């Protein structure tokens, strides 16, 4: 079994008492605390403007656990990408932003779709999962 950990730290001086929030989790397969996610897709890609693209189109199995990480490497603060799953808006990543979510692949159409706004955005992404239905060639 592979052991992969994810941790987030949020720090800020917005309030009188500094914000310092940390959380971590071990990426497990669905329904267990004893077996970690053992598959991963990882890539970096340039997303041009003009169309909506499938960032990940080999659909993970709906009942399995899946974690999605995406980072926008753009430096122009007016550039951003829209992230959608199965045509539902999930989030918007402006230059430098990142996201990490346990994705909900609830049916066979739940691809991860991405649209670039403002200009070409360079995206880094990783999908940790335990099962993928490959598309027949």
């Amino acid at each position, binding site marked *: 079994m592979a052991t992969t950990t994810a941790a987030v730290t949020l720090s*800020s001086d*917005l309030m009188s008492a500094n914000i310092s929030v940390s959380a971590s989790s071990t990426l497990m397969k669905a329904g267990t605390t004893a077996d970690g996610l053992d598959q*991963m897709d990882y890539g970096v890609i340039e997303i041009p403007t003009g169309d909506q693209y499938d960032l990940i189109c080999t659909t993970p199995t709906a009942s399995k656990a899946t974690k999605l990480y995406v980072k926008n490497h753009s430096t122009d603060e007016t550039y951003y990408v829209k992230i959608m799953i199965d045509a539902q808006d999930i989030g918007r990543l*402006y230059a430098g932003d990142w996201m990490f979510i346990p994705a909900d692949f609830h049916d066979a159409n739940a691809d991860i779709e991405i649209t670039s706004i403002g200009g070409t955005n360079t995206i880094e992404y*990783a999908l940790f999962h335990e099962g993928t239905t490959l598309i027949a060639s």
Partner: protein
Amino acid sequence: MATTTATLTLNSSDLLTDELSLSVTTTLTQTTTSTGIEDTTGLTRKKITSTAKGTASGQITLYTADDFAAIGYLYIKNLETTVGNRIYIYDDTSSGDPIQFQLDAGDFAFIPMHGDKTYKAYAQTNPSSIEFMVMGKDQ
């Protein structure tokens, strides 16, 4: 000006042949600017008592549409410890209240939200505890 940062680390020594050690940090800024965010809901801990979306009571509102200017950053963690006690985050603004993502026990998420949608949460098990915080720029 306040400085707010979010850091993610992903580590594994045995998923790949080489060690996975990924760390990214972003400074949270107001949309289309380099100016830091100014507002936050603060860290909140609540119990969800609803096991369905829609009209049933007991869901927790994480964010109300257009409360913040443009995008807000959502952090949320499922504080449950029993596997299968999932928290479902859904879009209460769009038709059909589509689920955005789901958190199993111990899972966390961090995401720059859409901003003009209301986000709510319901749970697989009543009650289930979560902690969450939204950061951004108030309207």
